[in-house]
């Protein structure tokens, strides 16, 4: 497990004082967030704490009402997920966004297919061989084991599907990958597969942000944990030294917030 990188001065992605209201409901009052390269950050909090909203803002799916975001120290504004993707941030949603009837390679390149060179390229004919080769190499690097690259996604197990979704995100988003509840639908063994993959991704230098309710999983892979409660950041914990009971207490408010007391 990597050592805490809090000493590193410039976060890869940083968000300060993010606020977001949906009508009369305040999802985020004032939340801060940062992630450094090559670390896994878990975003934890009880239901309604604002985790999903924060992640949607970070991934460009929503726009904040107030607050700033900086990528590599420079201010950024995302008006759509496409902007975030262009900036190197890829998100894996809970439903994975895979096409079950298409094969793994097709899914990896979905929407971004490699096209044959001209003249075939003029007719938009795609280069299946190149895509399959690249997909095979990529999955091998991440040690995602499948029977065949030609398998259709609907024949994969839940853990394999999640892994393919994560692998796709990593393939396109070399810098930051955001995972929304990656192990929520998985059994013990399948979760293990995904958690190992997350660690490998981190070791390759990509920053991983993930939301999870599963405390044991969080403690297994996260380098840092950012705790949200009622739309605010109430603490930062390190699995090395902090325990699960501290995390839970912060989440439920049993313990006073250690951060975010000043606006």
């Amino acid at each position, binding site marked *: 497990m990597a050592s805490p990188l809090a000493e590193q001065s410039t976060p890869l992605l940083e968000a300060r004082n993010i606020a977001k209201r949906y009508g009369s409901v305040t999802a985020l009052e004032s939340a801060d967030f940062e992630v450094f390269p090559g670390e896994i950050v878990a975003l934890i909090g009880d239901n309604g704490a604002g985790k999903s909203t924060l992640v949607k803002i970070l991934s460009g799916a929503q726009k904040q009402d107030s607050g700033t975001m900086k990528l590599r120290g420079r201010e950024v504004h995302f008006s759509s*997920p*496409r902007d975030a993707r262009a900036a190197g941030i890829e998100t894996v*949603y809970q*439903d*994975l*966004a*895979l*096409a*079950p*009837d*298409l094969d793994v390679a*097709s899914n990896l390149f*979905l*929407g*971004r*297919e490699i*096209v044959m060179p001209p003249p075939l390229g003029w*007719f*938009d*004919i*795609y280069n299946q061989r190149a895509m399959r080769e690249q997909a095979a190499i990529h999955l091998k690097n991440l*040690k995602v*084991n499948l029977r065949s690259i030609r*398998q*259709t996604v*609907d*024949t994969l*197990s839940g*853990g*394999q599907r999640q892994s393919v979704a994560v692998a796709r995100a990593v393939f396109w988003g070399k810098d930051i990958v955001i995972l929304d509840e990656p192990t929520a639908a998985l059994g*013990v*063994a*399948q979760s*293990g*597969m995904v*958690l*190992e993959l997350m660690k490998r991704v981190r070791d390759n230098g990509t920053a991983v942000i993930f939301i999870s309710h599963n405390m*044991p*999983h969080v*403690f*297994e*892979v996260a380098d840092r944990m950012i705790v949200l409660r009622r739309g605010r950041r109430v603490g930062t914990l390190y699995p090395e030294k902090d325990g699960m009971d501290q995390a839970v207490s912060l989440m439920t408010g049993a313990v006073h917030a250690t951060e975010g007391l000043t606006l």
Partner: protein
Amino acid sequence: MADSLVPITPTGQDPPRRNEDLSAWLTARIDLVLRLGLLGILIVMAIYFAIQTLPSGGNLTSIRQSIFLSPGNLQDIGRQMAVAGVIALGETFVIITAGIDLSVGSLVGFAGVIAAQEFSGGWSTASVMASVLLMSLAIGLVNGFLIDAAKIPPFIVTLCMLGVLRGLCYLIGSGQQQTLASVGDPANFSAWIENSIFGIPNIFLVLVVLGVAAAVFLRFTKRGRYIYAVGSNRESARLSGINVRATILTVYAMSAVLAGVAGLLLLGRLTSANPNNGTSYELDAIAAAVLGGASLFGARGTIFGTFVGVVLVNTLSNGIDLMGLDAHLQQVVEGVLLVVIVWLDQWRKRRVSAG
């Protein structure tokens, strides 16, 4: 700390047993099996009809003399399947997106009625064809727009369009059959359609050319792939950056334009436009596509499979006639085949979601 009571293998699961492996392999290839199975049924059927229609005293060695295999008869089958085949091509695209187009039969009749009116009004063949195809394109775009933008189910939208177009068929020309003139452009038009090159009917050649183009588009191009993606999971396709609206508009537009082509072919063949033409052709198109392996759940089906389905249906009809059997037998056989194939498709879907 992580719960490591269960050892975690790299694949995260126990090595699969041999039986599971084989059946999983089969499931994944069920469409190949179905397609080959269908082709097999077709070949068996053709051999059976060839034997049954041998001139008296013939046996297997003289199979070439079988009436069924005679050039005239094969040409007939080719002509018979052209109109239905062209429509089935378009329907395949739509079905792959998990949609359905019930309006194609009415559009065939409508195209014929409009073309006949234009011909009798003195329009040239080129302008008749251009106007009919443009109109079909517009109708397809309307279908696609209502389905994607207004989010009305395809069944409803195309069913309504079926009624609207059929009604227009009767209103235009006040329900009368319109015969094409026997001289000039209309006559040349139907003469070309009735003609053959090297013994192959032109009308069949049109089907083959369109079929090859459709197959290449669907199988080898990006946008063809997107059609499968949208049918597989529309939201995933959207999130992956695929223009779902463009895809939906494309498939319904293609279905409509192909139906327009089919309407022109039918007009040329019959040399007259009856407002009733094309009734229930959409059902035959859907049946052929489904027989050929297209799944109404979407994301499955090929042009080749549909083509085999169309050939099968028309061969069956022809063979039954040549053998002098009751024509209703055809409906029974087709119905049974459809049930079997749809059941297999359902079984495949259940197996896969359980996996």
